């Protein structure tokens, strides 16, 4: 049976921060549980009913005590709230520079697409010491990507892109679970995250990926679907120029300001008339059912790669 751990491995920069709050909460729990249990046992013994017609003293309460035991717990919970919220901010805010990996969940497997073109199923290779962002979506029902050793988890929701980020601190192999019930083989929707030293990771990267980069696959799909007849590099096309568009803010016909992010690109492919850029006609047909979730991710990555070349970008914004 092997060893029986009682505490999970800590293998990300977030893990010690979550654990610290966890230990504080255990302290609070143990203190109050022992206080209550101790008082109950003490009073039960000390004031044990000694005759059948004994009655208790007529004590109705104490405003002073009521205020104390309302305010003190309230203050303690506010400490926990602020602490929990600040760590949560860190969990919910990926750093600016991340190594991006796309994730598609489906009943009952995890599919990973690396930018260089490697594809994996139920196994995810990442380098140690780098900020990794998983951009996740689902093909069917809600799943949840959970890596206990990293203390991160997020629902993987069909029709949405949810980001999960971590920075692994220890090379090794860690459990990857689906944590949202998703049907028959839910408990089989598991895998491993393989954290590797940077050099090993580079070796691993160069070992696979004969299909070319994800953006290249997207470019091919872009041509196959004839997107390029309207979305042309020059402004002569019937659709907006996509070069340099990703990350910009555009104005729709309704006058709404929209940031061009993964979700907007996805929506514009599947439901083009929802948010048409001002100055263009709603003539684009829907591609609902024509592009797989993976295909959408390839197209998104292709759009991301279309950065305006001449414009000098600060080096740090390379990706």
């Amino acid at each position: 049976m092997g060893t029986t751990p009682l505490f999970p491995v800590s293998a990300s920069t977030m893990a010690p921060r979550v654990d610290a709050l966890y230990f504080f909460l255990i302290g609070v729990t143990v203190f109050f549980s022992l206080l209550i249990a101790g008082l109950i046992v003490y009073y039960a013994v000390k004031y044990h009913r000694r005759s059948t017609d004994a009655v208790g003293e007529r004590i109705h309460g104490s405003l002073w005590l009521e205020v104390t035991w309302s305010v003190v717990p309230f203050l303690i919970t506010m400490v926990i709230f602020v602490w929990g919220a600040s760590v949560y901010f860190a969990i919910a805010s990926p750093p600016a520079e991340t190594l991006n990996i796309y994730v598609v969940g489906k009943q009952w497997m995890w599919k990973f697409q690396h930018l260089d073109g490697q594809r994996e199923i139920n196994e995810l290779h990442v380098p140690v010491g780098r900020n990794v962002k998983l951009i996740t979506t689902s093909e069917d029902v809600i799943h949840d990507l959970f890596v206990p050793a990293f203390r991160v988890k997020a629902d993987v929701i069909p029709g949405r892109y949810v980001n999960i980020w971590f920075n692994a601190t220890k090379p090794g192999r860690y459990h990857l679970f689906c944590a949202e019930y998703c049907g028959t083989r839910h408990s089989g929707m598991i895998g491993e995250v393989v954290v590797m030293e940077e050099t090993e990771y580079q070796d691993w990267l160069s070992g696979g990926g004969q299909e070319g980069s994800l953006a290249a696959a997207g470019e091919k799909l872009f041509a196959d679907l004839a997107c390029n007849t309207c979305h042309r590099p020059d402004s002569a096309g019937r659709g907006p120029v996509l070069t340099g568009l990703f990350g910009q803010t555009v104005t729709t016909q309704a006058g709404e300001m929209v940031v061009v992010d993964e979700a907007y690109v996805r929506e514009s492919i599947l439901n083009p008339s929802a948010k048409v850029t001002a100055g263009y006609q709603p003539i684009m047909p829907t591609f609902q059912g024509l592009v797989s979730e993976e295909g959408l991710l390839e197209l998104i990555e292709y759009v991301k790669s279309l950065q305006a070349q001449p414009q000098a970008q600060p080096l740090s914004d390379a990706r």
Partner: protein
Amino acid sequence: MPTVLLPPRHYLNNGYGIRSWLLTRDHKRIALLYLAAVTFFFFVGGAFAVWIRLDLATPAGDLVSDETYNKLFTMHGVMMVFFFLIPAIPSVLGNFLVPIMIGAKDLAFPKLNLASWYIYMLGGAFTLYALVSGGVDTGWTFYTPFSTASSTTNVIPTALGIFITGFSSILTGLNFIVTIHRMRAPGMTWFRLPLFIWSTYATSLINVLGTPVIAITILLVAAERLFQFGFFNPALGGDPVLFQHLFWFYSHPAVYIMVLPAMGVVSELVAAGCRKPVFGYSFVAFASLAIAVLGFLVWGHHMFVAGESVYSALIFSILSFMVAIPSAVKVFNWTATMYRGAVSWETPMLYAYGFIGLFTIGGLTGLFLAAIAVDVHVTDTYFIVAHFHYIMVGGTIMAYLGGVHYWWPKISGRLYNEGLAKLSAGIIFIGFNLTFFPQFVLGYLGMPRRYHAYPEEFQVLNVLSSAGASILGVGYLIPMVYLMWSLRYGRAAGSNPWGAVGLEWTTTSPPPTENFSQTPVVTWNAYEYSPKVDHVA
């Protein structure tokens, strides 16, 4: 001790035969109809739990298939939540006690009360049909789009069963609210009401306001599943997370539907067990209402990892901490009530001790889940399973059993075997902790809930939990035996075996059909033990 006899005329001997029960409008008989029904569903749900734990004794889950396992935990949850925990205390103890405690002859709408029971049974019949005709595998939470687009099991009959049963909750809640407003005996002012009445009142408010939301949600699920309306399935243009908002808008308050009546029972047990007024009566009473109101504002804490925006998460987090405060106030007040009391070690009080201890742990572990950063790690794991079983089983079922033992002499007119009762209370306490404490550890280790198979390193803790479940199962069976036995062979209890105050102890055991030989006039506050007031009619 002088020989006590049952009164010559009481609600149990006022008519025999099946019709006198199935057509009764007596709230006490209806309470017993519910008692039989919820006990049945409790043991059905419990059998599923034992089956689940047996299967989880090995990492590979060798006992049943994946499909069967998923149906087992779904039916366990559906049975326990909708057919036991939600109705148990209000429908059994509430039905029996609300009119008697306020000095009324019956509920405001006796026929409606009987109708509630039939509606409940009809809902139960649908759900049992869903069960025997193949089961359902969505989990009791029915998350979309799995429930509307993916599951091939009996989602509709099960959901329909829950839909129907909801009307029983609404009507019972309505009946209690009207009764408490309109039927109190002369002199029974609001602040003379037993705290069980306050908590039943708060529960009824939630039932009336919250249950329609789950009913509508179920209809939306059915419409999407049957007619492809795109409410929740993104492939049809819906939003899967919308379902979770609707579901938890009811189902979080439903947690308080399950636990508020339990708190009311414990207030009664502690007062009678200490022969003393409940410390801070008005704080305990208003804490119930505060919980009922705040309980409607915290549903989003079930969705911290479900694509909720950072700022909504913060709001739901802080509100969730705030709803913990009235519960903490209650725990402190119950404990303080023991100070300088005449403290009993009889069975009902043992259950009250168990409730306070386990509910404290359940409540404090709730703080882990309100703290968003920790919730991200432990949500959807066994930590959650452990937490809510401490509240539901350690809290609600402990209080329910404590209440059944406390009022059993009133309900049946007879005494049970105190030795066996204490023994089973001890077995339940030990079995409960052995079952659920290891699950906290498993949860933080990362074992997801609803897993049929799990990595081998989790086996030792799972075996401990399964061993505990078998002990717990035995603990629950013993009261069935001695309570049944007492019905025939138990000594007559007399009208007030505990030396408790409260109107229910002023009438005979069992009470007459009309509860009191003449309408009581109340001139004292609740829990007036000292100086002793003799107010037997």
